[in-house]
């Protein structure tokens, strides 16, 4: 088992800096997910770890060994590609054994390895087929088999599920997680799907524009985002971000939102936030409330620091287990998550309750968490 260490890693393509000095320490056996919007550099970072791109500046260590100048074949890694990248003219068996053939591993060992992996992934029946005759899910399995058969120290996954349909994606997601539990190998996994990141990772690195914004476990990323970007990227539907001003009201700290001519709301801040913002009166802030922190009044067990207000329902979006109710406030559509039975039709005046304990506050200028 190997750890991976990135120190001040930079990558330029011509004049464009794609990776802008990244430090990352991945523990042995960890499942790290690199997540971010398209073009944030996450796939490039993975390719740098794989050795498929040359590093411009900085150092990469795998298992304590500096691998900057080590070609991919000698890095003891295996990679699963988004496009599966199966060899189209080879059978499934030969796809899986190609790496061993290239490394001159004895035929008997090859057969044993194919046997073991194909049983593990349930692809025994497919071994003599060509990739063109397989379904998307089967190809995905074969691609994983090709990676697993090498028994490397580090697995790299480049958006492996994004070509699958929704149902299969969830199945394969669970299988990958089980696989990691069973093998315990270090995995670096790239995705743009924040749910995949949340469900799989032991730690998530949220990337944006060549930087890592936050590197923490899923709960911390979700509940304790460092800035607006991380808060907005993780979670679906995304966090409501209501611009407002810090003020005082009846000896309480509040965030005043909405312009005076359209029903402003003063969200009272919980004590935990008081102290941090008491000196900031008048400061422009963004109030972050996840949809599940706003619900129908009185439908949850009572708690401290609840804030109740009324707004007309503008849109109702049932998802099955929950119903999203959108209302208009401060020039935004604010999303609340309610139980389906509490939903009311568009236009009705609805009584919302916000759990202010779960409020996140961000500086409007720096976008950093307060």
């Amino acid at each position, binding site marked *: 088992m190997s750890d991976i260490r990135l120190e001040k890693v930079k990558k330029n393509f011509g004049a464009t800096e794609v990776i802008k000095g990244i430090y990352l320490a991945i523990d042995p056996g960890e499942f790290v997910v690199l997540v971010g919007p398209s073009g944030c550099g996450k796939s490039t970072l993975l*390719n740098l770890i*794989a050795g*498929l791109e040359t590093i411009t500046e900085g150092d990469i260590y795998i298992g304590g060994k500096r691998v900057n100048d080590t*070609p*991919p*074949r000698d890095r003891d*890694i*295996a*990679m699963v*590609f*988004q*496009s*599966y*990248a*199966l*060899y*189209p*003219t*080879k059978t499934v068996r030969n796809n899986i054994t*190609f*790496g061993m053939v*290239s*490394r001159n591993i004895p035929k008997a060992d090859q057969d044993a390895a194919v046997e073991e992996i194909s049983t593990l992934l349930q692809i025994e029946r497919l071994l003599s087929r060509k*990739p*063109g005759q397989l379904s998307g899910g089967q190809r995905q399995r074969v691609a994983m088999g*090709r990676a697993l058969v*090498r028994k490397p120290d580090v697995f790299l996954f480049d958006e492996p599920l994004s*070509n699958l349909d929704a149902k299969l994606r969830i199945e394969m997601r669970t299988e990958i997680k089980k696989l990691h539990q069973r093998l315990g190998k270090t995995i670096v996994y790239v995705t743009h799907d924040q749910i995949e990141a949340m469900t799989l990772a032991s730690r998530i690195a949220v990337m944006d524009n060549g930087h890592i914004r936050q590197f923490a476990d899923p709960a911390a990323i979700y509940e304790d985002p460092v800035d607006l970007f991380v808060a907005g990227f993780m979670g679906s539907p995304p966090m409501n971000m209501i611009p407002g001003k810090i003020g005082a009201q009846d000896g309480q700290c509040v965030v005043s939102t909405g312009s005076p001519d359209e029903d402003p709301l003063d969200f009272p801040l919980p004590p935990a936030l008081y102290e941090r913002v008491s000196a900031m009166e008048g400061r422009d802030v963004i109030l972050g409330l996840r949809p599940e922190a706003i619900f129908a009044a009185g439908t949850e067990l009572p708690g401290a620091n609840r804030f109740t207000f009324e707004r007309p329902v503008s849109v109702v979006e049932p998802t099955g287990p929950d119903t999203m109710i959108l209302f208009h406030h401060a020039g935004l559509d604010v999303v609340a998550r309610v139980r389906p039975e509490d939903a009311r039709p568009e236009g009705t005046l609805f009584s919302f309750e916000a759990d202010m304990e779960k409020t996140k506050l961000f500086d409007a200028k720096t976008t950093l968490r307060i």
Partner: protein
Amino acid sequence: MSRKNLSGIVQQTGAQHVVMRTLLFLTLGVFCLYYLIPLIVMIATSLKSLEEIRAGSLLSLPQEVTFDAWNKAWSSACVGVRCDGLQPFFWNSVAMVVPAVTISTILGALNGYALTKWRFPGADIIFALILFGAFIPFQVILLPMARTLGVMGLAGTIPGLILVHVIYGLAFTTLFFRNFFIGVSSGIIQAAQIDGAGFFGIFFRIVLPMSLPAIVVTVIWQFTQIWNDFLFGIAFTVGDSNPVTVALNNVVNTSTGVKEYNVDMAAAIIAALPTLAVYVIAGAYFVRGLSAGAVKG
């Protein structure tokens, strides 16, 4: 689209439709005939005896089929002073076209692979320069090429002609393969790299088997070009090393004796047969290759 797919489409019916269809197929038939007449005339004439040619009209079918003209064209017609027919020159052409097509195709595949999958600084400029070779008129290089062959000691030989065709073919073969490989997912190359294969390992074991459609297109193109070439053949070979195209010219353009149209026609068909054969054989592979190589991402 296959015929099976087409048959499901709802078609128009009615008198007007029938008239239009008839008109369409009539027109197509006329065009078909127009293009086939030269071939029909050639085959018919080659199967007639000289007397019959003199007596009958150009378009009439042979009264009495005889293969004498074919025999003569193949083995006893006089090419210049030598009267062995086209046969030796035909084998000259084969000896030239096989290595020339093979070498230029393999080199083109290697070029296309390197230019697309092992990107290096200046790859696009190098490709542009190679491509420029496709636009150089043949006549321009005749003299420098003759001099080069002379210096290399290959003047007037078949290996010399092979070299010329390989060099001239590279621009096209590189273009074909480069355009094919640019559509091949780079992930496959990367996967093979991680699997531990090197530049040539990936080329021969992964990339080349995938490129059957490109190989077939290139082989058809190169074979047709090289087999049918006359200019390089006449400029860079002499007498016994002439390719069949030059020999054909010498058979047809003799100024002595009676004009044997039947022998001329048979000789022309013999000289053209290999290209036809390549179209028929490789064309089938071409279509098959196109559909077999398709793997969706």
